[in-house]
């Protein structure tokens, strides 16, 4: 492929695919849908670069676009679920696999799943290594709100951790 924008997009895909997919999975989006969103993100990035749009902070840009697409996908899934009844995500797993899956659920991840949406997204983006400023841009919230959210979430994680030590 000779188009330099396409090469750049592929390089960014290599760097960010796994991180974006991990982030999308926190929206409870199936992996296959997450893959499709990632494809859309990088096609949009190609269009963005080709139009000569700003190149600053492309790392944050891909997460922001993925976040917006995930929200749309999530909203659509919610509407469909309302019509079709509750989704049974683990239906394909047999009881043993379900048990093994449950065993893998770390206590810290359980805390994360129980967090309010924005706190969960902040924490997932922080786990992907985004600095506070980029997290604020991705989510469209203030820097202060990001700091407060992460402080709150880390306190919850720490509390769960301490309790686990007490129980052991």
């Amino acid at each position: 492929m000779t188009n330099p924008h396409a090469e750049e997009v592929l390089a960014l895909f290599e760097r960010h695919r796994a991180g974006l997919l991990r982030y999308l999975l926190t929206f409870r989006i199936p992996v296959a849908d997450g893959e499709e969103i990632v494809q859309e993100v990088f096609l949009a990035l190609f269009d963005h670069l080709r139009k000569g749009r700003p190149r600053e902070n492309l790392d944050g840009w891909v997460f922001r676009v993925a976040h917006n697409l995930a929200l749309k996908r999530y909203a659509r899934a919610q509407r469909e679920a309302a019509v079709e009844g509750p989704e049974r995500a683990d239906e394909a797993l047999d009881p043993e696999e379900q048990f093994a899956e449950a065993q893998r659920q770390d206590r810290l991840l359980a805390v994360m799943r129980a967090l309010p949406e924005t706190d969960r997204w902040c924490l997932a983006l922080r786990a992907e290594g985004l600095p506070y400023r980029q997290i604020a841009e991705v989510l469209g919230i203030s820097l202060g709100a990001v700091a407060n959210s992460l402080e709150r979430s880390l306190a919850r994680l720490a509390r769960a951790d301490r309790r686990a030590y007490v129980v052991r």
Partner: protein
Amino acid sequence: MLSDDHLKDGEAERVLGDFVRAYREELDSRIPPAAQPRAMLRERLVEASEENPRWLPVAALAMAACLAVFGVYERGLLRRSADPIVPQRALTPGEARNISIAEACQGSADATIAVPTSVRRAVFREYGIRDTRTDRYEIDYLITPELGGANSIRNLWPEPYSAVWNAHVKDELESRLHGLVCAGQIDLTTAQKEIARDWIGAYKKYFHRDRPE
């Protein structure tokens, strides 16, 4: 005694580190290998490059101009007289999504996927264009996505590269309107309406000139 919510020195970093390890371990196990998605993206990028070649060098445009001089247009290859430099209102009235100024100006509103080939064909068919070679036309959004334009066939039309009022000129207008909206000098609805109603008129109005430079 420490309250439950008080983080001890270094505890935040340790908890975050533990969390990141658990988070990655759990989620990475669900992520399939990259080879197939990578190959698919590569293929789609090739297709997108061919469909909408805004990056074509200026030399290619100069070549098109030379061909015009030698009368190639007259032989009907480009059918310039039939080029729809303005969209037909019945086919392309323009359609906008409901987005806020913040979304328009954050830079994420233009997150649209490339127009699928099937939709491109439908647009050409509607406009009665048989010569659908991709270096002639850009299937363009009448209301640009960054101003909230919808990803709908009612917002798409085949915009020629060859006319005076061409796709590149409209790109300039789109950037100008986006800048004015984000600077608060015109409202988003006005920008959407003006570009949908008469984009050439809007260009003249906002660039204060009768022809593109």
